[in-house]
Structures are given as C-alpha cells and as structure tokens.
C-alpha cells in the first residue's frame, strides 16, 4: 500500500513538473510576438551600435595623434587626448552594453524559438565571454593609458563583436522575417531624414 502511495506521489510530481515545463515553453501568442519584436530590436541595435569599421578605424587612427603631437601646442594636445579618450570609452561602453543585451536575450528567450544547436550556443557563449573580457580590459587600458594604449585590443573587440553579431544573426534568422512587424519593415520609413 505504501509503495502504491509513493508511486502515485512520484507520478503526480512528474506530471506537475511536465505541466510546468509545458506552460513555460508555450507563452501566449501576444507575448511571443512582443518578445520577438524586442529580440529583433536588440539584434538591430547591436548591429547599428557597432559603428562601421572605417569609423572605428578613424576614431583610433594613429595618424591624427601624430599630426596633433607635431602641430599643436600643449593645451590642444591634452584636449585632443581627452576628447579621444571619451569617445573611445563611449564606444567600448556601447559595444559592451549591446553585447550584454544580446546575451540577456539569448539566455532568456532565444532557445525557446531559435532551436539553437548546442554547438552554436557554446560558440556564442564563448564569444560573449571573450568579448566582454576584452571590452573590460580595453576600458581599463584606455582609462589608464589613453585611447592609443591598446590598438590590438581595439581590433580584437571590433572583430569579435562583428563575429558575435553574425553568429547571432544566423541563429536568429527568423527574426528578420517581415511578417513579425510589417510596420518596421516598411521601406518608406528608411532613408528619409526629414
């Protein structure tokens, strides 16, 4: 009798667990659409936030430093270094923020929709981790030694961010489907600056 009760209890617990799992993986249609929209916005903002590569190169161009050091008086040289330091830190903060947003999304929702493979998820996790670490190191280097302290790290951050972005994009390719939010894909909304 005791064995029967125990078996029944185990069965009830298992059923309850299954029910909870089923509920978690089937959010409401409205909620899903909202989450997909947010996810796509996060992905888009990461791509926009990364800035074009040529602009990043311009920000960290040694050519400007050399010219300013050779042509400008001391006060202008200090102003230049301070301005570039602020821009460099703002760029690193932006990349870091965008990557954290995307990471949050992947942790929270992506696996429910994207059917990511284990290897893709592992690769993404590794890339997220290494990118965040390099961002942190770059931030410290720029703080302590100025914007031209670690050109190698700048290249690493830019390349790794681009890589994370393309892995995410390919794993979340369904987010680019126009039907999710037709208004967002209206071509007339793009290109007009007025």
């Amino acid at each position, binding site marked *: 009798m005791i064995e029967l009760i125990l078996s029944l209890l185990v069965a009830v617990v298992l059923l309850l667990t299954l029910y909870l799992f089923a509920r978690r993986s089937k959010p409401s249609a409205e909620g899903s659409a909202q989450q997909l929209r947010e996810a796509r916005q996060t992905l888009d903002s990461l791509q*926009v936030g990364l*800035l074009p590569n*040529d*602009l990043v190169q*311009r*920000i960290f*161009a040694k*050519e*400007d430093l050399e*010219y*300013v050091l*050779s*042509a*400008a*008086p001391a*006060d*202008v040289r200090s*102003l*230049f270094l301070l*301005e*570039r330091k*602020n*821009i460099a830190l*703002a*760029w690193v903060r*932006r990349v870091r923020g965008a990557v954290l947003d995307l990471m949050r999304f992947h942790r929270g929702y992506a696996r429910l929709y994207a059917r990511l493979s284990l290897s893709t998820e592992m690769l993404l996790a590794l890339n997220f981790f290494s990118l965040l670490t390099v961002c942190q190191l770059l931030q410290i280097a720029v703080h302590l030694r100025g914007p031209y302290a670690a050109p190698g790290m700048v290249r690493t951050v830019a390349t790794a961010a681009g890589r994370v972005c393309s892995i995410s994009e390919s794993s979340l390719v369904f987010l680019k489907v126009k039907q999710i939010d037709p208004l967002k894909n209206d*071509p*007339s909304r793009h290109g*007009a*600056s*007025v």
Partner: protein
Amino acid sequence: MPFPAEYSNVDLAADDLRRRTLSNMPAPLERLIYLGSTRDYNTGLYYHDGLASRYSEMVACQALANCHREAYQQLLQSSVRDLVQQVDSYVKSTRSAPRDFIAAWKSLQPYRVAVPAETDPLASEFLCSNVKIALAIWESLQFGRSRQQPGASLPQ
C-alpha cells in the same frame, strides 16, 4: 520600388545640386554648413527655391537631405590634418576676420546644429570633437602658438 519616378527625380535633383551649387564648395565642412543652413529648424524640412522650382518642394527637400548626409559622411572620414585645412579654406571663403570667426565658432559651435537628423549620436559627437580640435589647431597656427614655430604653416 513603390515610387520609382520620384526616386529618380530625387537623384536628378541631387546631381543638379552637386553640379550647380556644391561644386563651388570643395570642402565637405563648407557643404555641411551650407546644407545645414537650408533646413528649417522648426520643421526639419530643407528648402531651396531654385531646386524646388525645377522639380518640386518634396523632391528638392529629399535631394538636399541626401547631399547633407553625404557631406556628413565625408567629413566623418576626414583626418584632423584634413579638417584643419578645411577650416582654413572655409574661413577664406566666408571672408571673415580670423579672430571674429574663432570667437563665433567657439561660442556658437554652429557645426553642432549642422549635423543631419537621425545620425548616430556617438558618430556626431566624434565629428564635433574633431572640428573642435581642428579649430583649436587652426587658431594656434593663425596666431603663432603652434608647436612648429617659427614659420608654422597649414598642412598642404
């Protein structure tokens, strides 16, 4: 494309603008300031009488907006050395007294309002920072405070 005719008109108007007006302004900085000044700050719309009479107000507005963004992108890619050169040629084109020009640009910072709409805030901050530095270097070269004294000259 939903409006092919309208789009090609915008391209024609932009080419017209480049040929007739902007070709007299070799420096992107000059073009940026000029195109920024054709925008109504209350509505964000661009106006150009000649262009509007040849095409339409809407087409002229879009063409001006496109050329404005183009000048902005070119300026973003300019090095500090190049910007100093552009500031110099801009001052010469306005025929302002250097001291008056410096005083006005330092206090009013017109390049800040000349940035096109919907541009990336970090990119426009970078541009304004570069113009500020170029202005400071130009000032030092003009008034003999540069590191290259004596005989300091503008970059060629």
